[in-house]
């Protein structure tokens, strides 16, 4: 080959190379061009959205509060949002109960315990489109911090507790986000049974509520119920303390069953077994023998009763009273009934908001009572029942349906939901009940009823060791098991009596509810051990 040929061949190669190269280059150029285009578009978009979102720093999900800083910011309570605060700029923290977008606006209902208020974010010079969208997408039950102006409304907002104002949101931040799928809807949980059926809307059944108690307790009704229950406890303590009673704490792990062997929980106690106390009976009485004169205690009571009824729990809170008296056990009845009346009055005067809130979902007649409390004798109760057609023996105990019927008869005649039935037949009472001095068939014992259901069983106790032993033998109780109990009365014991009530049952009956689980935060029954 000649030099020219070699050159030509090289040139040809180069040409071939440059063709490939060109193609490659072209491809790369195209790629680069596409990428640049994309980037330019994205940049343009971003610029575009950033340009539109002028309220970027007025909303968002806050970083988890790990106490990064100590803000000196006052948060207003939803309860305090009234027309007095019109046109004020406030901060508050509440849960998002509902949020829904409507065109350029988003309406929210913000809830705090028993109270809720309407709020809105509207596209304008403070809020951008993106902010409104964000607000509409906040999941239900999320906790938010909101800065807003309080505005008066012309028409009352019927669906909220704060009816005269609404909030115009300027800033909204999510403090704690809730998962989007809730196990139950709060609106359904607050809906009255009848209303649910009528409108074909859902209500939540009791088991679902109890399984997801944390959410169920957030409802306005639950908040009201347990606030009232706290009030009952408070009034019980205050009234008795004012009467000179001393609060005591009694042991719950005990060596012998106090009321009767059957319904007691056993626990393993190192190398042996012990029992959970069915009542503080034994220890209350020992305190009286120890000269404390008048005592009360508030504590758990454990009953291993396999009853699945509306009014039985395996664990409940007992409010117990025991006191020494001078000459007649009616001094004890008077003290107990006066305490109950003070509790009712205290609830009537200070917890009307809570009572009305509960009545919205569970309507009932207001609780009525007499002062001083009505006291009927057992014989009178039997006479009233017989007059109504019930056949029963003089010494027969009252069955639950008879108790309810008697409650209705007493309500009809005296218009009271609370009364005492005195002088029960001796045969149906525990062995430590003092017999009636004039009629051996009867005893110095009494029951108290609210809305026809028993809430307290009490009596004058036998304070004489010898009589106590006789009564125990009569009831065929193993004396060895109660030796310590009988011993407490051997060294001088004052005449005394008392009784105990169940906190959950009293609240349930006062509010006119129908299941004791509604008034027990985390109820225990034969089928439920958690939460």
């Amino acid at each position, binding site marked *: 080959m000649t030099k020219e040929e070699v050159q030509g061949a090289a040139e040809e190669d180069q040409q071939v190379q440059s063709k490939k190269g060109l193609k490659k280059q072209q491809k790369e150029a195209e790629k680069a061009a596409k990428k640049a285009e994309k980037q330019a578009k994205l940049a343009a978009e971003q610029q575009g959205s950033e340009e539109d979102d002028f309220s970027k720093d007025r909303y968002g999900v806050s970083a988890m509060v790990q106490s990064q800083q100590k803000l000196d910011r006052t948060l207003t309570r939803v309860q305090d949002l009234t027309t007095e605060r019109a046109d004020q700029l406030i901060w508050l923290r509440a849960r998002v109960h509902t949020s829904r977008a409507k065109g350029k606006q988003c309406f929210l209902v913000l809830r705090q315990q028993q109270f809720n208020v309407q709020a809105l974010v509207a596209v304008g010079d403070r809020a951008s489109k993106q902010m409104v969208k964000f607000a509409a997408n906040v999941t239900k039950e999320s906790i938010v911090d909101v800065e807003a102006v309080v505005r008066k409304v012309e028409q009352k907002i019927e669906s909220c507790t704060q009816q005269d104002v609404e909030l115009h949101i300027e800033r909204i931040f999510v403090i704690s986000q809730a998962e989007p799928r809730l196990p139950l809807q709060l609106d359904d949980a607050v809906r009255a049974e009848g209303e649910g059926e009528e409108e074909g809307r859902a209500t939540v059944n009791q088991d679902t509520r109890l399984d997801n108690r944390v959410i169920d307790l957030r409802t306005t009704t639950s908040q009201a119920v347990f606030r009232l229950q706290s009030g009952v406890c408070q009034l019980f303590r205050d009234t008795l303390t004012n009467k000179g009673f001393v609060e005591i704490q009694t042991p719950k792990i005990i060596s012998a069953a106090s009321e009767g062997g059957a319904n007691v929980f056993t626990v393993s106690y190192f190398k042996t077994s012990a029992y959970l106390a069915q009542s503080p009976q034994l220890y209350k009485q020992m305190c009286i023998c120890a000269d404390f004169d008048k005592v009360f205690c508030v504590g758990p009571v454990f009953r291993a009763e396999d009853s699945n009824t509306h009014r039985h729990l395996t664990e409940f809170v007992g409010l117990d009273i025991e006191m020494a008296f001078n000459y007649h056990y009616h001094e004890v009845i008077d003290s107990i009934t006066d305490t109950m009346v003070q509790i009712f009055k205290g609830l*009537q005067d200070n917890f009307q908001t809570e009572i009305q809130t509960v009545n919205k979902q569970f309507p009932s007649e207001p609780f*009525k009572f*007499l*002062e001083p409390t009505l006291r009927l004798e057992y*014989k009178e109760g039997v006479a009233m029942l017989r*007059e109504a057609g019930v056949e029963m023996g003089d010494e027969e105990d009252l069955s639950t349906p008879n108790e309810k019927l008697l409650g209705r008869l007493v309500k*009809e005649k*005296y*218009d009271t939901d609370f009364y005492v039935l005195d002088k029960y037949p001796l045969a149906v009472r525990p062995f430590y009940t003092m017999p009636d001095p004039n009629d051996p068939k009867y005893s110095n014992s009494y029951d108290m009823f609210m809305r026809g259901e028993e809430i307290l069983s009490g009596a004058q106790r036998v304070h004489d060791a010898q009589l106590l032993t006789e009564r125990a033998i009569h009831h065929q109780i193993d004396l060895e098991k109660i030796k310590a109990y009988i011993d407490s009365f051997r060294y001088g014991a004052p005449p005394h009596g008392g009784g105990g009530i169940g906190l959950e049952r009293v609240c349930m009956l006062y509010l006119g509810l129908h299941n004791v689980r509604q008034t027990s935060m985390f109820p225990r029954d034969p089928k439920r051990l958690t939460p």
Partner: protein
Amino acid sequence: MPMYQQGNSCCSEHALQNGEVDPAVKALEARQDEIMRKLYELKAAVEGLSKTVTTPDADLDLTVSSSLCTQSISAATFQGTTDLDALLGKDQGALRDIVINANPAQPPLTLLVLHSLLSQRYRVLSSVHVHSSVASVSPQLLSCLGPRHADSYARHLFQLGFTLIWKDVPKLQMKFSIRNMCPIEGEANVARFLFKLLAPYPNDPALATLVDQWVDVAFFQLAEGSAKEHAAVLRALNSALGRNPWVVGPEFSLADIACYCCMLSSGSAPSAPANVQRWVKSCENLGHFSPAKGLVQ
């Protein structure tokens, strides 16, 4: 009757040297004390008798020492027998309790008077309660049925229960047997029912109707009417009392209780005509009306 003043002159004159009084003097003084006491009693008895002469049906003036009063007043005031079982139904071996719901703004004076009469006739267990519909009630209203009976811890010892409940009711109401009796409304009607536990109405239907008519007049016109109506009733009363010692005739009746109490509550007693004033005094002498008077004062 001249009253003898007890003098100390005997003592000082007869004091022995060591300061002690002669036992004979002591005996004399004791006899003197005894005679003074008997004189006082006699004086009281005569005064009482004099009132009886002027006030028909008054056994004794109750303002006099109660030790002279041995007979139950109402037993003498009301003739005729009543049977609790016939009126209230068979005794079931438990207290038969009459419940009265009254508004504290309008205390039922006639029922207080009837309660006092019932308490003298039967063993009545009286209780007063305040219903939760009423905020509070004056101490006078709480104690209007008198002091608590010492045996009130044993309800079954009593023949009749009288339970007064101060309650926010539009009209006074009485309840007894839920099964067999509907509630009785209105003070006049309850008064009629309670009166029948004390004594039957007059046998003569005309007289019985007259009693009822006066009871209605008392409650509708005296207690509630205008000043004009009051005046008219007082005039009618005056002429009725001109012919008879009591409103309906020679016998004390529910009409007297009703008219007296309604006059008391309307405050027209002081301005009443002569016969009415005399009759008012007679009523007061019987002593049954003190519960009502005590409340109005």
